[in-house]
């Protein structure tokens, strides 16, 4: 006893294409009051499905097997009505992307009081007072006034605090937080986790944290479970898991995450299987460098490691060396002799007018100056709202700016056609930046045609070569963006940019929408391309580690100003 939440042999099958497909199986976990358990995994691992199964929030047609005990009470045996009484009262949930997860047309106070009035039966006024108290507790300044505001009037971090206040409204014993900090920059991530830690200690909360970020988990969770393809492959104390992971997938995942001074992240070959293709044997085996015949034949059971406390892994050939020793020794940052000047930015300022015909303007970028040599990679890092994306958009001439931008000696504003195309931009979300009804091949060929390649056969051949260059098979030429994975789509977007034979590629958060292992592959590719093609990059990112993988120099933006530009120390 004493466990707040216990899952035993939980399995979930979802309705997919008219049949029941098992997406999660055989999950056993337990979580005590005052403890944080993290479920770590990439998209498709089943971590969110498992979390949603607990309060019964899975989509219609889903079936759950096994036992889900909340303080000894089996939630699966409860009627809908009884379960709903627990949701919001005993179980609080925090979702990712609070802008979408909060009702845009309802005052935040009303969203917090909703659960209070429903479960505690307080009067309207008393519930509102309680909401203000909660907003205060999660660190919202001027809570009494802000309770009447709408979600869009809060910043990203504040919005997530509102979400947390709403989840805690009825003093739950279990808080389920599904990627609570995705989309927030590093500072805000830390702030939210600090808040969660404080609340957990104050209220003796059991926290189930869903995340894909191993390093965050190691710092903020007591224990962690790594999920892969619907199974739990490893469970143990979070800190020791980061230091000495056992399962080969955990090791690979750790090596794939870019780390400051950590050298080149190592991509994991292949991709996670779809639930329809889940094997009975070890599901990581096809991507594993250590797989033997045994791994492909049977599934390993979760077994305890000989050494430490409660660390169990489902691997026939677990790793024995700590992860630090396993990290790929970093090839020094590619440093061709950097001389000459490719880009010169002088006193660049970007202003956005507030509203239609309004006199006031918001200054997004203020007086930024720097130069870049041909083939140089510059990382631009900063918190959200620091002006880094506006800077990138001004450099490629997408927003009006003041100051001077010289590209290869010529003012940008005088460049037309071919000269301007030597500078290319790759967007953050490849799925949205590719035309959904244009095949990958057509997207690349369009860029080639703009570059003056008239012959259709030559275009096709060149497009194939470009795809190969970004590590994609030519069978993808005729695929529509909707059928490509995130990593593939981003590679197509890069191939399209390369079609113009750019001297400078501006990459806006190239890996932000990708999974860890996919992102590692993309970073490796980008680094490779820089060396082979001599193309220079401006990498816009909120993740210093990503910048450190690619960049020769790192520029730091803060409140629209360039506060520092330093050499990236090769590790």
């Amino acid at each position: 006893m004493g466990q707040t939440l216990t899952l035993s042999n939980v399995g979930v099958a979802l309705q997919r294409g008219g049949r029941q497909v098992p997406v999660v199986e055989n999950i056993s976990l337990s979580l005590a009051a005052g403890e944080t358990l993290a479920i770590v995994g990439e998209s498709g691992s089943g971590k969110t499905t498992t979390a949603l199964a607990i309060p019964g929030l899975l989509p219609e047609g889903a079936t759950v097997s096994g036992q889900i005990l909340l303080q000894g009470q089996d939630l699966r045996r409860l009627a809908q009505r009884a379960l709903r009484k627990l949701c919001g009262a005993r179980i609080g949930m925090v979702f990712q992307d609070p802008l979408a997860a909060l009702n845009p047309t309802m005052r935040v106070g009303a969203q917090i009081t909703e659960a209070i009035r429903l479960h505690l039966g307080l009067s309207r006024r008393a519930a509102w007072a309680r909401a203000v108290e909660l907003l205060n507790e999660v660190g919202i300044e001027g809570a009494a006034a802000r309770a009447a505001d709408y979600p869009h009037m809060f910043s990203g971090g504040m919005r997530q605090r509102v979400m947390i206040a709403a989840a805690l409204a009825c003093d739950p014993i279990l808080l389920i937080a599904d990627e609570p900090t995705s989309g927030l920059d590093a500072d805000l991530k830390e702030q939210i986790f600090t808040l969660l830690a404080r609340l957990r200690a104050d209220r003796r909360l059991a926290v189930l944290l869903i995340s894909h970020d191993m390093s965050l988990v190691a710092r903020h969770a007591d224990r962690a479970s790594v999920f892969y393809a619907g199974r739990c492959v490893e469970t143990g104390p979070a800190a020791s898991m980061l230091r000495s992971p056992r399962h080969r997938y955990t090791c690979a995942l750790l090596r794939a995450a870019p780390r400051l001074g950590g050298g080149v992240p190592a991509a994991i070959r292949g991709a996670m299987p779809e639930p329809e293709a889940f094997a009975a044997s070890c599901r990581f085996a096809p991507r594993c460098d250590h797989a033997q015949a045994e791994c492909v034949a049977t599934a390993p059971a979760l077994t305890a490691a000989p050494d430490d406390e409660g660390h169990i892994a489902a691997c026939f050939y677990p790793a024995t060396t700590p992860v630090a020793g396993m990290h790929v020794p970093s090839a020094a940052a590619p440093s061709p002799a950097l001389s000459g000047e490719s880009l010169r930015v002088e006193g660049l300022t970007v202003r956005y007018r507030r509203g239609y015909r309004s006199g006031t303007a918001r200054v997004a970028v203020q007086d930024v100056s720097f130069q870049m040599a041909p083939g140089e990679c510059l990382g631009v890092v900063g918190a959200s709202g620091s002006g880094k994306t506006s800077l990138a958009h001004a450099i490629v001439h997408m927003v009006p700016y003041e100051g001077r931008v010289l590209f290869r000696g010529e003012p940008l504003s005088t460049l037309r056609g071919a000269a301007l195309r030597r500078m290319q931009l790759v967007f953050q979300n490849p799925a949205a930046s590719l035309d959904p009804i244009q095949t990958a091949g057509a997207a690349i060929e369009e860029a080639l045609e703009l570059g003056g390649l008239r012959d259709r056969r030559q275009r096709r051949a060149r497009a194939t070569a470009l795809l190969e260059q970004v590590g994609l098979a030519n069978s993808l030429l005729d695929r529509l963006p909707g059928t490509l994975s995130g990593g593939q789509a981003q590679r197509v977007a890069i191939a399209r940019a390369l079609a113009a034979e750019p001297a400078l590629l501006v990459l806006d958060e190239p890996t932000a929408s990708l999974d860890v292992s996919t992102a590692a592959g993309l970073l490796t590719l980008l680094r490779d391309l820089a060396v082979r093609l001599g193309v220079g990059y401006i990498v816009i990112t909120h993740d210093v580690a990503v910048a450190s993988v690619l960049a020769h120099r790192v520029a730091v933006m803060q409140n629209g100003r360039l506060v520092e530009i330093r050499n990236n120390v090769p590790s």
Partner: protein
Amino acid sequence: MGRVAEAIATLFFLVTLTFLLAHAVPDGPAYAILGLKISPERLNALNTQFGLDAPLWRQYATWLWHLLHGNLGFSYLQTRPVAAVIGAYAGRTVVLYTVATALAAVAAIGFGWLHGVFYRSWPGRVCSGIELFLYAMPGFFIATVLGMVFGSWLHVLPACGMADLHQAAPGLADRMAHMVLPASSMALFVTPWLARIFAQGVHEEFSRDYVRTARARGVGFGSILLRHVTPNAIRPMVTMLGLSLPAIFSGNVVVESVFDYPGIGWLLWRSAVAHDYPVLVGIVLVLGVATMLGNLAADLVNAWLDPRVTYAE
């Protein structure tokens, strides 16, 4: 300021076009007033009296000059100022319009709920079928059928006029009874696609993250539908309702003609037939203003429904 100037320019263009089109039609009001067999002398005399023998540009200039002074002109047919004529008829239409729009909105919300909640199962498909069927019906046909069934065959509702002329002083109940068929016919023109738009909204909003958050909070289905989904799903419908004022009006012309309801639509029809240019152009002007006010009202309602919408001014 920009918006008002834009509206005035649009109205100016609208009335000019209507003025020219009305005068482009052969014949003139004299025939309607004196009959088709009048002598050329009398025709010329009447045209001179009305100023219709002047060149078209002078007629237009005179009319515009008067309009700038707030004078809409004089009806040939009714020998009254246009403003007075329109004023007499407009009130009845405004009442009919309000009742019809309210009916349409209520019906569309009811239908849209059913359709949107059961979007992919059979009740939704049945709703969708009914909506498509009604949508495909021409307006005059619906009005005629309703008049025939409830008025002529069943004799449960009056299908003609706006009050019982046999009574000395028709009461409110009588007036309301006379409004049932015209109002329902008008509502039926717009309900199907308003319902469709609303149903689409309900269906989409149900898949949003905030609905899942509400469920995680323990909110029941009914409250989710009423408190969360409906306020968000209703916005496109309100916009469409504002934009569809002219469409409702063209339905109104048909309905008032079929049911002989003496409103603006009926007046428009009569004035067009009789070449009563001043009334015709006056009605178009009033409708133009009404349409713009309708759109403005829809925008304001939307701004009230959605706190994210603001109008910088």
